[in-house]
């Protein structure tokens, strides 16, 4: 932090922006490892992938899309290849070429999902898009939402909740704040940071578009204090706009967790089982905001994203602009390959990411990071007896009792697990990280949540 040219003081020039550092209770501060990639510009090296592009029909929360093409069809870039009537967002082809298969394929979610496989013809012939470029100010609210829905935007931080649904809460709810989540608290990840530095106009424009949907909402750009350069980069674009403020948050994990972010900034708590809209908040990821801007102002669908590629096996770690559907193997090879035998491939950050058993899974809308670690960095520590140090209780950002939940899952008392709100666990991993006895606390909560869901389903059929 010594060579940081910006301090909190530059914010003082902007009225309304807070110099106070916002935070939530609990949390941890793992080694950031961000220095590896944070100063490298976003690379376009992998924008011309060779391998078969895989487009899973489910890249969001909700109902899976139905494929709209079949084997042998010619598709164009930006052509809809899957859509759903239910909760969800359409899927686009990010290349032009021929459909070679429509079959279940492994995806970053860990499950096999029906996918459209397209052979890239490298021409990138675009389909004629229905929405011409226009300033969002000339559009009605309905037209803006139509464009966002058309563009297939979902929460790109990892959750994948369809954005057009998020931006259209029930009528009786009024939205007070739209939060742009620039916390990026996971170690290694710098994609949001690079986007804020390289494309600040689109980040702010996306927020302005979202704000135009709500008459009384305030826009908050929430940035952790280890990313002051990003805050300084956004600063000129919010000058003179009294609806948007930059807020600086303490660098802490999971500061970027939706619920933690809302509590840190507004002091409100999202009710258990509820949505941020229940407390008048909408949280958007940085890349999502950029996607909104591209969708509304340029009429372009979501077909690319920024992915951080890191880990001790990667020859050229960095941030890459990637066409959605590009296999991870392709991303790795085009970036320069690996330097040693990988032992673990993590989709997402080290705290909450999922391990993949193969490099043959595609980058999807919610893939923010690919982490490839060697054996040395992946050894799972051996579990020993709980010493009741209370550190898990101290760090839990949901104020749960992880040691207790672990005990309950071990003796399979899922009723009590539910009673102690184990199902509210956000699986951030803080408890497992901090545990000196290396107990698998987060992991047991995951099991508990699955069992609790089964119990609830059974309870449902009985009635």
């Amino acid at each position, binding site marked *: 932090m010594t060579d940081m040219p910006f301090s909190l003081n530059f914010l003082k020039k902007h009225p309304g922006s807070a110099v106070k550092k916002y935070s939530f209770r609990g949390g941890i501060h*793992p080694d950031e490892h961000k220095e590896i990639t944070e100063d490298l510009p976003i690379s376009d090296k992998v924008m011309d992938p060779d391998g078969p592009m895989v487009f899973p029909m489910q890249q969001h929360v909700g109902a899976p899309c139905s494929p709209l093409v079949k084997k042998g069809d010619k598709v164009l870039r930006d052509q809809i290849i899957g859509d759903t009537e239910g909760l969800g967002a359409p899927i686009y082809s990010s290349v032009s070429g021929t459909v070679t298969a429509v079959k279940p394929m492994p995806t970053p979610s860990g499950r096999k999902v029906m996918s459209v496989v397209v052979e890239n013809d490298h021409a990138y012939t675009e389909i004629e898009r229905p929405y011409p470029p226009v300033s969002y100010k000339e559009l009605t609210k309905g037209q803006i939402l139509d464009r966002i829905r058309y563009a297939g935007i979902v929460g790109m931080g990892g959750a994948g909740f369809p954005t057009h649904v998020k931006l259209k809460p029930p009528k009786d*709810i*009024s939205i*007070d704040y739209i939060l742009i989540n620039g916390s990026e608290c996971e*170690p290694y990840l710098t994609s949001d940071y690079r986007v804020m530095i390289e494309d600040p106009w689109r980040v702010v424009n996306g927020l302005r578009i979202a704000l135009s949907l709500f008459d009384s909402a305030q826009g908050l750009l929430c940035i952790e204090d280890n990313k002051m350069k990003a805050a300084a980069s956004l600063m000129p674009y919010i000058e003179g706009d009294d609806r948007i403020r930059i807020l600086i948050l303490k660098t802490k994990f999971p500061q970027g967790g939706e*619920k933690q972010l809302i509590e840190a900034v507004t002091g*409100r708590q*999202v*009710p*258990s089982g*509820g949505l941020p*809209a*229940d*407390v*008048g908040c909408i949280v958007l990821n940085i890349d999502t905001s950029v996607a909104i801007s591209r969708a509304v102002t340029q009429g372009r669908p979501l077909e690319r994203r920024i992915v951080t590629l890191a880990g001790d096996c990667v020859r050229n770690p960095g941030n890459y602009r990637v066409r959605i559907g590009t296999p991870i*193997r392709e991303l790795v*090879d085009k970036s320069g390959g*690996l330097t040693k*035998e*990988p*032992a*673990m491939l*993590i989709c*997402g950050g*080290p*705290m909450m990411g*999922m*391990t993949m*058993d*193969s*490099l043959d899974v595609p980058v999807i809308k919610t893939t923010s990071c690919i982490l490839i670690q060697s054996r040395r960095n*992946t050894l799972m*520590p051996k579990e*020993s*007896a709980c*010493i*009741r*140090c*209370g550190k898990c*209780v*101290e760090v839990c950002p949901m*104020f*749960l*009792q992880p040691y207790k939940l672990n005990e309950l899952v071990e003796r399979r008392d899922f009723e009590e697990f539910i009673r*102690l*709100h184990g199902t*509210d666990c956000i*699986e951030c*991993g*803080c408890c497992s*990280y*901090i*545990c*000196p*006895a*290396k107990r*698998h606390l*987060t*992991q047991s909560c*995951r099991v508990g949540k699955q069992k609790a869901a089964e119990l609830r389903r059974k309870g449902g059929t009985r009635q």
Partner: protein
Amino acid sequence: MSDYTGLYGSSSPHDHAAHTTSSIMRDVAFALMPILIFATLYFGWKALLLTVISVASSVFWEWLFEKLLKKPITITDFSAVVTGMLLAFNLPVSAPWWLPVIGTAFAILLVKQLFGGIGKNFMNPALAARCFLLVSFPTIMMTFPVDGMTAATPLAYLKTGALDQAPGYVSCFLGVINGSFGETSKILILLGGMYLIVRKVIDWRIPVGFLGTVFILSYLFGGDGLYQILTGGVMLGAFFMATDYSTSPMNQAGRLIYGIGCGLMTVIIRFFGSYPEGASFSILFMNVVTPLIDRYTVRRVYGTGKQHLFKSAKNAKEGEKP
């Protein structure tokens, strides 16, 4: 291009803090070292010898129990070492060599292992053993000779009313007084305690609650609060005994209540009991109360408060309507 097969699957998080049970216990042992060095210099080699015997027998009992019951050997977690050191620190330097051997057998076998080993015991093993020795061998445990002369401890002077013979604040603070050989040097205990607080090994709430209560209540009962925390086992107890993980509460609020409870009991025993010292008994008492404290200090889970249950943004604006 390699196929990169053989990727491990695992469940997040994939990153872990560097500390372990063993490193935490080593931190505690490290924090106790200056006290041991001082005791050796002031009370003589016997203090070091008793500590070594105590640590060795403590580790031996743990190993023996686990060996006989074919359980995984856990002596490398250093918890038995800490127990051994703490028990020795509670002995008078005149104690015979076999006393810590019996004491650690009681601490490790009965109090710790029979209840399930580390994390499962409901009383601090070192303290329970101390009290066991105190009631079993009262003469040995209450005789404190310095330079071959038997003399009373500051608290004993207070109890008998011989105030004029009691040592002053500075002597008590530095530890050049009579007493159990690991308890006397308050400045080194304070130093070790600070180290553990800075290293986040112990929570400041327990020692601050404990010492603060003794300090304030002593004045309320007409005593000298400063003198009360500078004498006896209160300081060692507050930083090293009451903070034992297994037997202190899990929540921060609970820890403060626990610390205050320890202080309250200590003052009651010191002022109204027949023993001159009450720190050990009061910590043991609060050890037993810990499950109860834990039960009633559970924090409200995020988003489950009544005010959050039906609160829409509209309600929030209109002034927190139910």
